[in-house]
């Protein structure tokens, strides 16, 4: 497991989404999860919920290509109570709903906040898309891009906005590396080259507590946002 930078600096990012409610109270931290189809976005979100739900109040918004498959998976897995999971339909264009026209996602986020207040964290999962899919800063505070080892070790080298600009790059399914002939060290070197000083982590969700590097990063983001209020 590689954790490129022990400490991330989320406060360097500018917020275009107002981090406060009109009454001055802090709203929930919003983190977007994007990445190609099948890379493990939903599995990562599910594992994060299981790891963090005992100490944080969490809700999830899914953006599906077909109706509510990811939301249905999360409900079936019972990672959160069903009222904490909302699905947004995207009209066959998941990247539009998270970047160009974020109105439906903002609706979902605000309805969850109203119904479940206080929320600490809202995870917004994109529908599986391509390497250019990124979240609007008007929708999320931070974004995570999830790729996987089995899709080929040249993905970090190919770059694209998701790989190069996401606040955290997750290279998932490291357990499959021996079976697909992937050199993890080369993937790490390519990731470092593409991302300069932005962090990336390698994960295997089949391992016990395999989502820990991502959970730690999320916890750091929350701590940086509420200095002195870490739980």
């Amino acid at each position: 497991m590689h954790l490129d930078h022990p400490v991330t600096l989320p406060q360097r990012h500018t917020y275009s989404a107002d981090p406060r409610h009109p009454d001055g109270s802090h709203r929930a931290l919003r983190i977007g999860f994007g990445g190609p189809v099948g890379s493990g976005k939903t599995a990562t979100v599910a594992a994060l919920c299981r790891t963090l739900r005992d100490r944080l109040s969490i809700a999830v918004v899914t953006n599906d290509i077909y109706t509510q498959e990811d939301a249905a998976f999360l409900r079936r897995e019972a990672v959160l109570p069903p009222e904490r999971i909302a699905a947004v339909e995207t009209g066959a264009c998941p990247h539009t709903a998270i970047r160009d026209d974020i109105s439906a996602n903002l609706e979902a986020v605000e309805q969850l906040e109203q119904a479940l207040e206080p929320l600490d964290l809202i995870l917004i999962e994109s529908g599986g898309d391509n390497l250019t899919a990124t979240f609007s800063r008007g929708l999320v505070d931070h974004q995570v891009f999830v790729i996987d080892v089995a899709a080929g070790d040249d993905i970090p080298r190919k770059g694209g906005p998701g790989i190069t600009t996401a606040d955290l790059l997750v290279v998932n399914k490291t357990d499959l590396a021996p079976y697909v002939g992937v050199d993890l060290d080369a993937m790490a070197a390519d990731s470092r080259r593409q991302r300069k000083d932005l962090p990336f982590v390698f994960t295997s969700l089949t391992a016990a507590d395999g989502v820990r590097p991502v959970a730690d990063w999320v916890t750091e983001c929350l701590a940086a946002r509420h200095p002195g209020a870490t739980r």
Partner: protein
Amino acid sequence: MSRTALLILADGRFPAGGHAHSGGMEAAVASGGVHDTASLEAFCRGRLHTAGLTAAGLAAAAATGYDALALDDAADTRTPAPALRRVARRLGRQMMRAARATWPCAGLDHLARHRPQGPHQPVVLGVAARAAGLTALDAAHAAVYESVGGPATAAVRLLSLDPFEATAVLARLADDLDAVAAAASDAAGRVAVEGVTVLPAASAPLLDITGEQHAAWAVRLFAS
């Protein structure tokens, strides 16, 4: 009026959630009713003269400054299918968000405060048009264009239809669009004196029925 403001409001890229809705096209494609350019044109013509005309009348009336809450009630009356009412209000909320950020004004704030669950989308469109300095006819044009532009784009995605042909369909309907917008605007010009009953109430029963059915599909690409 500002011609540019009209272009911004009517642009399919205006971030008000329309991209996720097919205006009944997904159900029409699934039933085989729309399968090529000719059937796309027939669908658009039908939607224009029914749902499009009704929406344009409401939008134009709202753009005159007529009581938006009364128009919202009139929109409910003209939308018998519960699923389509929900869609219209959800899209109204989304348009409200985009419009308040784009053209902040007391009229939009008032409407949002009294319809927290979302006003019908055409009413928001009309109030937004007024806020942008547009006329009732402008608002009607934006509404009729949206009534066919959304389904045509959806048809391109659903049928892999040639996008040039789909756009040519819209261009061929231009005279119809102008005529329907003018009729809607004329009616809106009388609403202050004669009340909301003067506004068009053309319905498309098949769109109502398939809209209700589509909302219950387990697997779909579009929200409506």
